[in-house]
């Protein structure tokens, strides 16, 4: 049986752990606020981009000249999975949830006889996927040194994806990230970005016939890569907010568990201590009686 001193040490160590998790929770909470407002600030651009793009797509639909980025390559043999995860752990099932979604998707594609290539953004996803799909991972980026994700980061990733696409390295690209619903709910999401899927184009063309300067094709040629970057940027921001949300609730749980443990350990400690005092008293009394 553990001695009283051992028990005291254990309680102290649990208390220290609790302090750490509590501090992490508070840090995550304040970072969450920043990440959330960053995600919200980026929303108008993505929305406007979407409207503009949809309008143009509506007017070029049916044109054979539509760029491959919009139309797709005409086959769906090679799939690229762009998996965005966090750089760090201690955030509950956040990373695993994204990885699991990507893994299921990859397995389904492989079972259907397609070729799968994986592009990892973030260290955690890479580490988890490496075990299963070592040879499928073609690219891997870490954003560890980046304090706040800027549009430039997303643009760099988009550029790499574009290069791969231009080389004909894949036909369909799907983006995996975690959508931020609320602090306690993060939704792992798969979104096809090449060729882009438009949510049921809001039917009424609103009679808006646009004129284009220079022309549709040139605008599309600029707009589509940009849209790719915007989608990736949005995914990274949503991921950032989700990560801190997940970390906050994970750390909140950990703090509560530590509190529970401390309560139990203190109870056992006090019981043992009292038992020892009683035992010593009995020894003293029976010793005195024997005299």
């Amino acid at each position, binding site marked *: 049986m553990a001695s009283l001193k051992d028990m005291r040490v254990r309680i102290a160590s649990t208390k220290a752990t609790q302090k750490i998790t509590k501090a992490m929770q508070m840090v995550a909470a304040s970072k969450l606020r920043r990440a959330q407002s960053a995600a919200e600030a980026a929303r108008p*651009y993505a929305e406007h981009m979407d409207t503009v793009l949809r309008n143009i797509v509506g007017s070029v639909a049916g044109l054979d000249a539509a760029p491959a980025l919009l139309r797709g390559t005409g086959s769906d043999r090679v799939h690229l999975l762009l998996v965005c995860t966090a750089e760090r752990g201690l955030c509950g099932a956040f990373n695993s949830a994204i990885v699991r979604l990507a893994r299921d998707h990859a397995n389904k594609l492989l079972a259907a006889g397609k070729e799968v290539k994986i592009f990892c953004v973030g260290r955690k996803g890479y580490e988890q996927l490496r075990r299963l799909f070592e040879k499928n991972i073609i690219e891997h980026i870490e954003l560890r040194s980046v304090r706040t994700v800027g549009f430039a980061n997303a643009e760099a990733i988009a550029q790499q994806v574009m290069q791969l696409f231009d080389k004909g390295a894949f036909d369909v690209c799907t983006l995996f990230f975690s959508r931020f619903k609320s602090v306690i709910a993060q939704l792992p999401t798969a979104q096809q970005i090449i060729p882009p899927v438009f949510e049921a184009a809001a039917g009424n063309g609103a009679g808006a016939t646009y004129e284009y300067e220079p022309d549709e094709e040139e605008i599309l040629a600029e707009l589509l890569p940009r849209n790719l970057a915007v989608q990736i940027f949005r995914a990274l921001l949503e991921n950032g907010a989700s990560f801190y949300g997940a970390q906050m609730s994970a750390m909140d749980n950990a703090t509560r568990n530590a509190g529970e443990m401390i309560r139990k350990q203190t109870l056992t400690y006090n019981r043992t201590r009292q038992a020892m005092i009683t035992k010593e008293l009995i020894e003293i009394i029976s010793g005195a009686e024997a005299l």
Partner: protein
Amino acid sequence: MATFQFNLVSPEKLLFAGAVNQVDVPGAEGDFGVLAGHASFVTTLRPGILVMHRDSGALRVAVSGGFAEVGDAGLTILADLAMPVEDVNRETFAGYVKEADEAAAAASEGPQRDKLALRASQLRQLQAMLEG
């Protein structure tokens, strides 16, 4: 004077949304002014200075490129980078110009290079306007 809705957004945030009298935009194929009731059209932007006129006065905003969309709902500008002229940091901007120059110099002969060179020269033009 009739006003219309004007939204200026960059990927990182919404920079301006509100009613304006007139906006002068540096389009890729020449500057153009937008007034209320402008015909719908979409165009790309070149690096330049955008001027928006409100009742409270004019505001000059430097943009580094992007898209403009004029529709029934008003004018929407999707800028790559945008900030009021007074806030532009000269040194940072000189960095952009240098980057563009290097990119143009590094590119191989062809339309891609022409495009980069054009961008570098447009940036330099904007730099001169900012200095002036």
